């Protein structure tokens, strides 16, 4: 039988089909037209976006909701550079993406042709790996490698730059797509001797603490972590991205730690004699002042990425491996622990320093998020942007399940939340998906409202609208003598009318009395997307707060009475 000759573009689509891809988030242009043409003959569903940044965040939200790589298809030059922010966001938070970019014909590369940019070159610092296809025969192999690299080990984005003439060229020599990755290994089990040493440390510790990060969620270590915590009676704190790695409704949960973590989690960090990270990279917003962080406590790090070991602080023990496999092996070596005295101390911290806010007066962001949490009862997927609303949501929207909390952590990308919610909704068709965003961030990607409308996605966009770029205002308020510069969002649109103009439903919350009723209406509305404009108090600050680069002992629980010195850390 004579094999049917496929083109490079068709080989790309074949590769996507073989990987079981459902959705492509994309935008066409001159250079990717052959791929868009091949798309017509496939069962793949195209989500046509309004801006390429939206496409990458949607793919990212889809990937984090499902654990499967999100696929993006954009054109050359500006199409691809618009996608870079989303690629960087995925890289910082270890989200698997496969981003396919059209490119000018090979003969034009480097000649400043129309819509030409060295996209693979631009991508190098912000991807797990990238390809420029120069021979159509390589396409089947590269497609397989791209998905394999994106999804395995520490996941991340992989970019494929596909010149238009290669997309049109025949694949004459199909290698069968056999991968060739001699420099890539996937860590699995950790070193058993090291795990035994760590088990010994855990037995000896009087005041142990588990720090659960995104790595634990990616490797699906939740069950093993819970077993470990319950058997040894060890309290658990999570990073921003680790939310959902341990149920926040559990007695042993301390919620999030770090810069805006709960005071009781941070007190636990200050008082523990052992802290073990399961898939958290000890980032700068968690450790504050590196040389004072958990001074004297035994520090243990389990990570699939050896490059994260001893990066900002020095560990006593590092275990290189998959979080789930390592914790499961560790569990076989553990005896029940007695930490009653320590848990008693923790209970005291919880009583002394609860997460609280004033319920009287104007509409508080915290009230809205608290009531939302009560109404959905853990059974919703949250996405967020970055800033005050994100921190309040992290504090008050308790997450109990894996992949139910999707936020831009490492990159801190404004405009992430809403498109990520679109992707998450496609990944979780039956679930309530709520994008908690700020009025600033939403305006960066609100162009995707029609995308949600035409796909009839019942995403709920809750705008915590204080008409300020709130987190920057907070810093100016605390560290810059309240000299506000460039933070007031004058001329915000009427978000309810905006929603209606796009064919979505609009709701507004103005007073405390509106909260429950309006949120319930929004939760019940399933005919398409809705926007809830919550006009909250303009000048509220997020607490607790550890100023960046400062020790945990500098934690603020309320507005300081005097101007504070500039923090030593960055942001």
């Amino acid at each position, binding site marked *: 039988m004579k094999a049917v000759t496929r083109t490079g573009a068709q080989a790309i689509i074949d590769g996507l089909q073989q990987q079981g891809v459902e959705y492509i988030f994309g935008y066409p242009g001159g250079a990717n037209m052959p791929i868009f043409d091949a798309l017509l003959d496939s069962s793949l569903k195209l989500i046509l976006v309004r801006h390429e940044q939206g496409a990458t965040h949607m793919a990212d939200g889809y990937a984090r909701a499902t654990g499967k790589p999100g696929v993006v298809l954009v054109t050359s030059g500006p199409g691809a550079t618009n996608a870079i922010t989303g690629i960087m966001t995925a890289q910082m938070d270890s989200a698997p993406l496969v981003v396919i970019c059209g490119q000018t014909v090979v003969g034009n590369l480097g000649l400043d042709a129309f819509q030409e940019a060295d996209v*693979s*070159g631009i991508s*190098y*610092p912000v991807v*797990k*790996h*990238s390809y*420029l296809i120069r021979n159509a025969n390589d396409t089947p192999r590269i497609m397989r490698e791209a998905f394999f*690299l994106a999804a395995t080990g520490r996941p991340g984005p992989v970019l494929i730059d596909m010149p238009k003439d290669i997309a049109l060229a025949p694949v004459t020599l199909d290698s069968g797509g056999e991968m060739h*990755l*001699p*420099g*890539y290994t996937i860590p699995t089990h950790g070193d058993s001797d090291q795990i035994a040493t760590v088990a010994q440390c855990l037995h000896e510790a009087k005041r142990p603490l588990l720090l659960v990060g995104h790595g634990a969620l990616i490797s699906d270590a939740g069950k093993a972590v819970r077993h470990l915590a319950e058997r040894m009676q060890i309290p658990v704190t999570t990073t921003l991205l680790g939310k959902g790695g341990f149920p926040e409704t559990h007695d042993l949960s301390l919620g999030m730690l770090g810069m805006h973590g709960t005071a009781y989690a941070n007190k636990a960090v200050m008082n523990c004699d052992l802290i073990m990270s399961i898939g958290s990279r000890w980032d700068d917003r968690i450790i504050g002042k590196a040389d004072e962080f958990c001074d004297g406590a035994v520090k243990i790090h389990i990570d699939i*990425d*050896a*490059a*994260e*070991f*001893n*990066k900002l602080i020095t560990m006593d023990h590092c275990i290189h491996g998959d979080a789930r496999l390592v914790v499961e092996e560790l569990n076989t070596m553990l005896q029940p622990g007695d930490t009653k005295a320590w848990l008693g101390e923790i209970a005291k911290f919880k009583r002394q320093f609860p997460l609280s806010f004033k319920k009287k007066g104007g509409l508080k962001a915290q009230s809205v998020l608290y009531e939302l949490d009560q109404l959905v009862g853990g059974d919703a997927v949250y996405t967020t942007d970055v800033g005050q609303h994100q921190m309040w949501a992290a504090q008050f929207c308790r997450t109990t399940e894996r992949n139910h909390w999707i936020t831009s952590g490492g990159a801190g990308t404004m405009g992430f939340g809403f498109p990520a919610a679109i992707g998450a909704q496609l990944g979780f068709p039956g679930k309530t998906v709520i994008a908690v965003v700020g009025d600033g961030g939403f305006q960066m990607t609100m162009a995707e409202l029609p995308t949600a409308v035409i796909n009839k996605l019942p995403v709920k966009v809750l705008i915590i609208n204080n008409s300020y770029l709130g987190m920057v205002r907070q810093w100016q308020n605390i560290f810059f003598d309240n000299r506000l510069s460039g933070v007031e969002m004058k001329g915000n649109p009427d978000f309810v009318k905006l929603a209606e103009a796009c064919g979505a439903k609009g709701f507004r919350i103005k007073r405390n009395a509106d909260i429950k009723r309006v949120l319930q209406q929004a939760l019940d509305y399933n005919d398409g997307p809705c926007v809830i404009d919550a006009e909250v108090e303009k000048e509220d600050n997020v607490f607790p707060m550890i100023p960046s680069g400062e020790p945990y002992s500098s934690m603020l629980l309320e507005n300081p009475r005097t101007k504070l010195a500039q923090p030593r850390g960055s942001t």
Partner: protein
Amino acid sequence: MAREDSHSISLLVNNKPGVLIRISLVFSRRGYNIDSLVVSPAHNRQLSRMSITATGDPATLVLILGQLNKLIDVIHATDHTGDVVVQRELALIKVDCKAERRTEVLQISEHFKCQSIDISDTTLLLEATGNSDKLDALELILEKYGIVEIVRSGKLVMARGASAT
């Protein structure tokens, strides 16, 4: 101020376009200056061998090696600083040398086991090999006569005995 040391790093990498940029990005992002870099095809032509000399603090180098080993195109990256390794470099040195000083320069050249490659009315071109310290010493001596141009290959490193580079 962090300590600044010179490090010899060897890498085995895929022999493909773009690999060098990915590697140099890891160094530059962390403020490491690459002093010398030698790239050549490895015995297996699908791979390349890189020898890099770079200056910076040792703690950062550990992180750099971690990042290098994480690159998909890097098979392995190793720091040979302080290891017992064979180290060689080649230099071409064009010396300002009129006929009357030729004998004197050639005597130095002989002492350093150089080859004289080219002679003109005013210059003498020497080829020298050896470890980098020896070439530094030669360069210092020849500077008295005037060095017109010098090209050095950069440091090559290979592990001794059966151990892999």
